[in-house]
């Protein structure tokens, strides 16, 4: 379970960033007072165009960033009050995640197993399960530097899941992947739902969201414009298809702003 309550994230801009943005604003509000809840056994999707604030939101939930105001609770643990317990419950994977090139899959999995404090026996069982599921045994002793994108993706997945997290967060997990590699992620998300885990993933592609999610939040310019179940989204639809409806909601806000 993830509970996001009136969360805001304001970045202090460095001089360099101000120059790049061509403005004198000292701060930039990436996330503005958002609230939502992700339930166990369901897949929650955060949908929004580029720069909407998806990554910032997910990073704040995963405790890489501190909230400027508001709070985040992961399985009941507040990320500010009990950061380590909160993190222990999370598996975090992004589309742009890198891996240690000079280590082998075995070594990387063992490293993260230790970092998450997984007991030896539980670790061996879990590792065996994941390696078999992802068909990783053939390359588990080769250095990452020699692996293909697909193999690396599998290692990233195994790394994310080695401590059997109750909450799994994916930031645009399929971006940059070919169809077959992306399929690994889709299977993984479905698996997590079956096992009763809380799944939160971000995307800017409506079709992907439609394929996977139970609950939907549309985020734009740091604000949540729509938050309901996927079924409710379909029922309230005013456009001819899902993507058109997503665009309509986003543009509606832009128009209101202009007016």
């Amino acid at each position, binding site marked *: 379970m993830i509970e996001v309550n009136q969360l805001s994230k304001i970045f202090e801009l460095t001089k360099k960033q101000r120059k790049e943005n061509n403005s004198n604003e000292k701060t930039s509000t990436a996330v503005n007072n958002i609230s939502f809840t992700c339930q166990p056994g369901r897949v929650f999707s955060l949908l929004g165009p580029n720069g909407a604030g998806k990554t910032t939101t997910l*990073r704040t939930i995963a405790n890489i960033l501190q909230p400027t105001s508001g709070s985040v609770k992961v399985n009941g643990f507040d990320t500010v009050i009990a950061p380590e*317990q909160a993190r222990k419950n999370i598996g*975090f994977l*992004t589309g742009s995640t*890198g891996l*240690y090139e*000079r*280590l082998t899959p075995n070594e990387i999995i063992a490293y993260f197993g*230790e970092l998450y404090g997984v007991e030896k026996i539980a670790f061996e069982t879990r590792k065996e399960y994941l390696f078999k599921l992802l068909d990783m045994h053939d390359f588990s002793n080769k250095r990452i530097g020699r692996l293909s994108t697909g193999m690396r993706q599998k290692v990233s997945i195994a790394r994310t899941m080695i401590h059997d997290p109750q909450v799994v967060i994916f930031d645009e997990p399929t971006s940059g992947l070919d169809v077959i590699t992306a399929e690994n992620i889709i299977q993984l998300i479905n698996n997590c739902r079956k096992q009763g885990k809380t799944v939160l993933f971000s995307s800017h592609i409506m079709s992907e969201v439609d394929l996977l999610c139970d609950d939907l939040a549309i985020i734009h310019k740091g604000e949540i414009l729509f938050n309901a179940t996927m079924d409710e989204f379909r029922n309230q639809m005013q456009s001819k298809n899902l993507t058109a409806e997503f665009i309509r909601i986003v543009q509606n806000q832009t128009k209101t702003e202009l007016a």
Partner: protein
Amino acid sequence: MIFTIFKKELKDTLRDRRTLIAMIVIPVLVFPLILGISTSVSTSFEDKQQNEVFKVALLTDDPGNEFVRELMSIPYSLGPKELEFHPLQEDASQLILTDSAQIAIAIPPNFDQDQANLISSNITVYFKETNLGAKQRAEFFAQHIESVLRNKRYDALDLNPTKLIPFTINYTNLSSTKEMLGKYVGGFIPYLFIIFGFIGCLYPAIDLFTGEKERKTLETLLTAPVPRWKILVGKMFVVVLSGISAASFAMIGLFLSLEVFEFIDNPKILEAVNSILSLKFISLLFLLLIPLTVFFAGIMIPITISAKSFKEAQSILTPVNFMIILPAMVGFIPGIELTYTTALIPIVNIVLASKELVADTLGIDLLFLTFLVMTAFAVLSVVLSHKRFGRESNIIS
């Protein structure tokens, strides 16, 4: 947790060829190479000089004079020479400038007569200073002949030479070879430490911080349930270890070249080096090296954390490198010594203290003060690293 991170980073670092080269290969090889090349060059030069046949042009109108006879009687073993006679009016400088001789000696007419009449003659020796060894050889010949002829005069005058010398002086040097080494080469060991300690820290500091950002693995690491300071400390241990290793391997290389390859054969120096190499010396040196290396790591890490790429980190750290080398150079300036004032300046104090350590003249109070000051700076730099590591703009791009 710190150990888990340390273990992983060490393994990762040891698989990086660049770091391995900077940490082990170059430090071990640098002294054998420098000493090996310089001794082989200088011995071959000395050999060449000693066995070189010196062409001596003698400008005289009387080739049978006493000077020439004495010159010819100097045995060949004291320097091979080849004599060439020229008339006195010939231009001696031309002979030297065209390299047809290395030394030209002009002997005035009536030399033998003047000697017999106890008159002092004027001999002129022409040479080129750039012709290494020419002047020394000429001086050696001239002194030898002069003393032979002088003794002849003592006999002729029936004088006892000792009556002519009011006193002789014996200068007795009481400083030990160890102290001399401390003064003259002592500045070298801290220099070596500082340079290699710095270089050893450099690659891991960039690789473990900037590299983790550039390769997009930092974000994942930060989601692990480990406090950030533990991640920092685990990584920092590897950086410090690498710096200490580089310095130690340079020392090993230095002693290998002295002990095994025997590039230096002066037994006094060898004896002094052996006595310096005591357990006490090595442990005190490391006592100073540890806060120094932590300090290096502590000033590098804030830079490598905020740098976006390997290149950027390297370009910022290059001028820092010079800022470290400059105080290290202080060790070579004569007259600057470890005092209660200089002990307060980081890096400079380490340089001066290790110099005294080599000479075995380091007092416990100054050792303690140096250690304390360096540790304080190391702690400050670590605190700065910790602050920077926590800064959000540094960890995400």
